[in-house]
């Protein structure tokens, strides 16, 4: 373990890139909304996510922002709408929501992207406080509403969602995290409130006041329809199910996707896949259900990544302030140790309320840093000593033995206070480093361009499954460059309410080339590749043992 940590820190000499706010220049101007500004209801505080997806098959990432609603609704013609932005290249976007067929008002919250029908075009699932929606992508930037036909319009309050082939039959199933049982939007009084006490100030009543809602697992039937199978697959957990974040990933290294679910004020769920899509929940015994002191925290966003370079996936969960975020270090075969204190994350994350999060490598040094997008749940926090509604983003830099909060060193724009919620990460300008999109409560989202993260060299993979699901979701990639091993899974899901760039992108820490890559597909097929030149994107088709350079 120590040698792995030391090894993981060898690339620390990489120059620090800067994140530059380019929202206005990029043409992104949608105002996101969620309830009334004073947030009298719990649903008002959740916010919305973002999806980074190549909807028009031109090779770059477009943007989709679900938008919210408020109790009592809006006058006709003034309803907030979701926004779809087409990437025109060079970080310029044009708004094409109506043309895309996505101009549907609703109390939308999160989104998941996956090629559910295996036609090579990404489809879009949108969660809501109310019936969810499923849009089939036609690959030219337009979507068709297939909610009813697919059987995906459940009205339970959905938060994050994730596509993964949990039963390994070659198509993508869908997990929908649902939050609490709450009265429908139509019964919320536009002038009313659910006030409780927060440090002597009135603020909305939190999730402790409402029963949990069982999450949904939709089996892909392979004919354009889905069937809900959560209970039969062992996912029902009763009152503790107050889910806000979900990440599907292989935590016990047995080559099937497990599920890790962040719950708000209740233990987190670790669903281990038996191999056939049936799960056993074992979070508490395996050390990933509670924090190190046996407390349930307010789990919001979640991600998985091998931060310590030991070959297995660790878990990070963002929580409420005065709780600290939780990093669960995988000790091997899904036994975890909540290591936030040891890794220096406890103090810096104590004062913030974290939401969107991602393990990623913004400086290209070959190890995984951590992003946490922050903002308090209560606007009233501004009236309480030591708290604030708007909070800076945190970027915890991996320094081998510890993480160090280093947002300021990545430029002033990153650390600017925002009431952040959803977070998507991806290479928007195709320059070989990861840019950020962060949604902001009742405001315009932030697009933050990474300048310089590509300098230490990079490589990107475009996966195409044949026996496995078409996008290779949950394929495991084991890369070696400059003597350093890296492990990642191909995955768009994770974070909070959001979907990120599905294409695995690796920083090379100055290594002149990639020595070798193993792609372990969900089908069990393994492709051995390399050596490969750096600063290129390669297409890898399952079972071909070839990496084909994709021209820029």
């Amino acid at each position: 373990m120590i040698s792995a940590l030391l090894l993981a820190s060898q690339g620390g000499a990489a120059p620090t890139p800067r994140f530059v706010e380019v929202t206005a220049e990029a043409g992104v101007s949608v105002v996101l909304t969620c309830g009334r500004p004073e947030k009298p209801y719990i649903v008002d505080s959740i916010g919305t996510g973002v999806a980074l997806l190549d909807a028009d098959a031109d090779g770059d990432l477009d943007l989709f922002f679900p938008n919210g609603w408020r109790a009592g609704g809006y006058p006709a013609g003034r309803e907030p709408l979701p926004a779809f932005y087409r990437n025109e290249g060079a970080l310029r976007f044009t708004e094409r929501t109506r043309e895309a067929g996505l101009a549907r008002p609703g109390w939308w919250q999160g989104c998941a992207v996956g090629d559910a029908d295996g036609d090579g075009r990404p489809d879009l699932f949108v969660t809501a406080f109310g019936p969810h929606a499923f849009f089939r992508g036609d690959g030219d930037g337009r979507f068709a509403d297939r909610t009813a036909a697919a059987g995906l319009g459940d009205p339970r309050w959905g938060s994050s969602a994730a596509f993964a082939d949990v039963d390994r039959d070659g198509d993508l199933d869908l997990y929908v995290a649902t939050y609490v049982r709450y009265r429908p939007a139509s019964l919320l009084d536009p002038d009313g409130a659910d006030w409780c006490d927060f440090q002597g100030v009135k603020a909305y009543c939190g999730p402790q006041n409402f029963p949990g809602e069982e999450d949904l697992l939709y089996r892909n039937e392979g004919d354009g329809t889905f069937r809900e199978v959560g209970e039969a697959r062992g996912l029902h957990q009763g009152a503790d199910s107050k889910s806000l974040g979900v990440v599907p990933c292989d935590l016990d290294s047995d080559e099937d996707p497990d599920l890790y679910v962040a719950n708000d004020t209740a233990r987190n769920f670790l669903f281990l896949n038996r191999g056939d899509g049936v799960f056993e929940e074992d979070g508490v015994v395996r050390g990933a259900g509670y924090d190190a002191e046996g407390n349930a925290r307010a789990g919001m966003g979640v991600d998985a990544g091998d931060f310590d370079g030991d070959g297995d996936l660790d878990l990070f969960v963002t929580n409420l302030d005065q709780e600290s975020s939780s990093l669960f270090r995988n000790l091997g075969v899904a036994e975890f140790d909540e290591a936030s204190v040891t890794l220096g994350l406890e103090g810096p994350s104590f004062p913030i309320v974290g939401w969107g999060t991602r393990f990623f490598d913004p400086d290209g040094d070959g190890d995984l840093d951590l992003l946490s997008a922050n903002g308090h749940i209560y606007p009233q926090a501004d009236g309480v000593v030591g708290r604030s509604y708007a909070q800076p983003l945190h970027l915890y830099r991996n320094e081998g033995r510890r993480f160090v909060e280093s947002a300021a060193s990545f430029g002033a724009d990153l650390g600017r206070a925002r009431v952040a919620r959803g977070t998507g990460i991806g290479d928007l300008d195709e320059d070989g480093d990861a840019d950020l999109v962060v949604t902001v409560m009742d405001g315009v989202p932030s697009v933050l361009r990474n300048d310089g993260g590509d300098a230490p060299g990079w490589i990107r993979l475009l996966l195409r499954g044949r026996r496995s699901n078409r996008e290779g979701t949950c394929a495991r990639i084991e890369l070696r460059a400059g003597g350093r091993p890296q492990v990642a899974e191909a995955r768009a899901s994770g974070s909070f309410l959001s979907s990120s760039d599905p294409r695995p992108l690796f920083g090379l820490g100055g290594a002149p080339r990639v020595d070798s890559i193993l792609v372990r597909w969900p089908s069990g097929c393994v492709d051995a590749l390399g050596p490969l030149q750096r600063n290129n994107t390669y297409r890898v088709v399952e079972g071909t043992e070839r990496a084909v350079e994709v021209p820029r």
Partner: protein
Amino acid sequence: MGALRFLARALLASAPLAQSDASLETGLALLKAGRALEAAEALESVAASRPSDPAVHYYLGNARLRAGDAERALAALEPSGALEPDNAAAPLSLGQAAGALGEFDRAGAALDRAVRLDPGRARPLVEKGRLALARDQLGEAVREFARAVEAQPADPDALRGLAEALFLTRDLEGARAASERGLEVAPLDRGLLACRSRVLCRLDGGEAAEQSYRAALEAGVEDAEVHFEAGAAALRNGALPTAVARLRLALERDPAHGGARFALARALARSGSEEGREGLARFRDEKPILDEIRRTSPRTAREAADGERRAFLALLYLCLDAGGKAREESDAAASAQRPAPAQILEAVRAAVEGRWAQAVPAFERLVASEPGHPFLRAGLAWALERGGRPEEARRQRSEYRRLLGEGIR
């Protein structure tokens, strides 16, 4: 300063009143000797014979406060403050009494008044900091303790308060600095030694932490939190036998310490012990009980006379297999000013004494009388388990879980 003024005035006023004078001197001596209950008894008659003497009411209020009777302390302190409104001592004590009763707004107003009347002193600010901690207002607590340190930089109470508040906000370097500064002023202060040990154990768990833990123990610190932090540090460092020993010590001091229970189970599980895995599996059911004890304990302490509350606490401790604490609470429930209802007392006492043949039916009757109460179910499940009826215990436990979920509505 205000209290000294009271003392002078009380002694002057006592001159013409020989009998009450003697009682006053006795009361003050008893108070000084830490015999608060007797002091209060002695001062009662003095207060009755000198209704317009603010000093006597003040001392009576303090005696009652120290004797744990905050409600009657308030009744004495109110007239003291009214009779001499420019003296900071009465509102300071009144703030403490109101805080102990959970009357936080009233406490805050009284302490604000004490600060205004005596702006240069740390003490009222320290009390404000403590009140903020009781209200879980950590930022406010740090601010008040920092103001107290600014007012009197060498005040150990202020430095201890600041160190503890900074520890709770996980500003560990700040907490270390405050506790070390405090120990320069008061090297044997157990609170400061305890705080420094907790801080260093969490900060790095290295040799400095070990030294500070040993120093705290040598000074007679017996705090569950100190053992817990030292145990948790050992667990983080992989020193599993040390972790197990220290976490067991923490649980001896406080069987309802959730962190220690959980960490002990993890340490045992990592040592390969089946006891550890069983402990982790059981923890899910124990967690609501631990939370309930934490939630109700402060109120139980404030309302010591309420036997039913004590009996309920005994039941919760039983469910944690904490026989000693259960017996303690059960005895308190039986002898309380308002004794617990016979039904619950009978169940708890039979269980404490291991009389399962009586305990199980007694718990069954309790459950029948209140079938929707999750913790009565937990008690029944526990008694059935101990009484050798594991299948029925399992059923009751599952009902307990269901009821916990239903409780959130």
